[in-house]
């Protein structure tokens, strides 16, 4: 199974949906709520987003694939569900 990690915002309903998508399928994932993170972590996350050309959350990484936004079909496809 590919590793799933996410950067999210605690205020964002689409980030909540993304978390629920993986939780409902018993797919383990890691996440950091950007808005609740310390300044150093926020800076690191923003560098990663800028490098990927991404501006909005959720920011989902499945293996090496980056998926910006709540896109359940793409999550399924990346995981070959």
């Amino acid at each position, binding site marked *: 199974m590919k590793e799933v990690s996410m950067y999210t915002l605690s*205020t964002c*309903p*689409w980030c909540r949906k993304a978390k629920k998508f993986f939780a409902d399928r018993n797919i383990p994932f890691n996440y950091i709520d950007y808005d609740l993170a310390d300044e150093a972590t926020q800076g690191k996350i923003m560098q990663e987003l800028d490098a990927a050309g991404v501006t909005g959350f959720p920011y989902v990484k499945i293996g090496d694939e980056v998926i910006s*936004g709540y896109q359940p079909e793409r999550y399924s496809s990346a995981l070959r569900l």
Partner: protein
Amino acid sequence: METESRKKALHYFFDKVVGPLGFKFTPDVELMDFLLEQEVVLEGKHGIPFCPCQPLRHDRARDMQIVCPCIPFHREHFDAIKRCWCGLFVHKDVMDPDSLPQLPPKDVGLE
């Protein structure tokens, strides 16, 4: 100010602003209510109702571009996906907001 009354005030103000831009509030009332509530929380924390789905960079010029309603700053992108990033607003002709995926600019041929 109490959360519910501030939500109503934001709704009143935003409605006046987004209409002339070709947008309206999402017909998904539950989503609208949640997003307005988050904006009231963000306004309480930062003094400004920022978009609940875009990160604050602590760079004033860039952060001003995610003050709700942020449509004028992302017009081309939001017109392409017929909604704003958080989904609080959709194009006036949209009746089924669930049919609109949350696509980033590069997925719709921008950037």
